[in-house]
């Protein structure tokens, strides 16, 4: 598959991973087989890492609290930040870990059932790690846009119905 078609394929899947292969082939102007092969290649190469669903948990009965935690750490000889990052991302409640440039080192997204559990995680698990120097926890109050998608979107076609 040509590079530009591959890029287009990825950008379609990034927005709609549930699109069926037949439709994907049609809109890309490729054969179904080509598309299938390319996707399995992308999965093998770990370019496509996973297929997720964006859920607005606020509208469910399930309680969830999300926090962004800025973490300052001491990098370790020979391993830089990788080792401490691994120590942190192995916790299943940790949703993401990014190495960040600027005033702190790691940005950790944490999802728990309650504020209390987040506090417990930060004080018992995160802060007690040897290389962690300090943490700053920010709670998410409301999500407006996530992964490029508006959370409470109401789109209405405001165009006139017939325009020459």
């Amino acid at each position, binding site marked *: 598959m040509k590079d530009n078609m591959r890029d*287009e394929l990825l950008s*379609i899947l990034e927005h709609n991973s549930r699109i069926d292969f037949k*439709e994907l082939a*049609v*809109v*890309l*102007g490729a054969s179904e087989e080509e598309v299938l092969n390319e996707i399995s290649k992308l999965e093998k190469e770990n370019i496509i890492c996973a297929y997720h669903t964006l859920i607005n948990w606020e509208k469910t009965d399930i309680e969830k609290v999300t926090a962004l935690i800025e973490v300052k750490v001491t990098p370790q000889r020979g391993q830089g930040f990788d080792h401490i990052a691994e120590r942190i991302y192995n916790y299943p409640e940790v949703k993401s870990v990014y190495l960040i440039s600027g005033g702190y080192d790691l940005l950790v997204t944490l999802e728990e059932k309650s504020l209390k559990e987040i506090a417990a995680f930060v004080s018992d698990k995160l802060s007690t790690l040897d290389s962690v120097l300090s943490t700053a926890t920010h709670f998410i109050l409301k999500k407006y846009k996530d992964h490029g998608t508006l959370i409470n979107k109401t789109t209405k*076609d405001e*165009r*006139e*119905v*017939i*325009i*020459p």
Partner: protein
Amino acid sequence: MRNFLSDRVAGLKPSGIRKFFDIVSEMGDAISLGVGEPDFDTPWFIRDEGIYSLEKGRTFYTSNSGLKPLRQEISNYIKRTQGISYNPDKEVLVTVGGSEAIDIGLRALINYGDEVIIPQPSYVSYEPCAILAGAKPVIINLKAENEFRLKPEELLSAITDRTKVLILPYPNNPTGAIMEKEDLEKIAGIIREKDLLVMSDEIYSALTYKDKHISIASLDGMQERTILINGFSKAYAMTGWRLGYACGPEEIIKQMTKIHQFAIMCAPTTSQYAAVEALKKGDDEVEKMRKSYNQRRRFLMNAFKEMNLECFEPYGAFYVFPCIKEFNMSSEEFATKLLQEEKVAVVPGTAFGDCAEGYLRISYAYSIENLKIAMERIKKFITGLRNNSQNS
């Protein structure tokens, strides 16, 4: 009381689309595929620039021909896409949409009785604008078997001693047809030989799906014989900002500027500031939208193929132009019935010229989800028609 109306205006045929618009408007829940404007919002950075210009209090008239930086950017844009240079001070005029440029361009050129050649099917305003300018419109009926491209023999047979201007509407609304370099070369040869001028409406130039658009102005000896019209509506999804431009020989732009100055003053200032930003930083956004249109175009072509509906493959704009002659109905009848029975609104081809009888304009400036539902309904509709005709 006497009749105060101008004969010339009263004599204009009302747009064929108007009637259909009224019918569709009454049906609240129809899916419309009848819209000739992008479904995307203007990219945010462009809107933001418009807002910023308002905050800065840039609310005055601009110079008649448009903001100097905008004319410069337009000139740069044409240089980088077509390889030709226009002097931003003398050969570029910023207008209220491409439509104004068509109107004042014709008014600047026409003496009473001059003939303007208009290939159809094409956009609805060429013929009335030509008539209002005092010209005699000469229509060329383009043919589906030529993929609605203008052929040299068609042009030759329309030329008379009074012919002055050829309107060249490509990429085309409503057919989606394009003209490729070899098509244009042949037309350009005739234009030079017969000493004519081209008004090239290239408003859809950014939306092509084969090779990049080529302007006839970029061919040998054609820049001096072309008024190139373009704008921001389609490429940047900026229809409501009403901003277009004309580039051409200094003498013509000067006369057009005169009309523009007296009739309009200047194009909207906020839109002009936003447009500078669009031309400077908009290429990626345009490409994103173009890709998205192309996906929908492929989706529709495939849907037609599956329902066995004849349609040539269009490579421009955001329209497909399927043929419905097999159903023995006029375009208008077909469109009306489709609307009443399946609640899908499409535009009868005849709105864009009599020769488009038997065709429909379907716009793909809609999400694939929308198009999917519409195609299901059209499929159901034509399957019904085919079954009926078999049974009768």
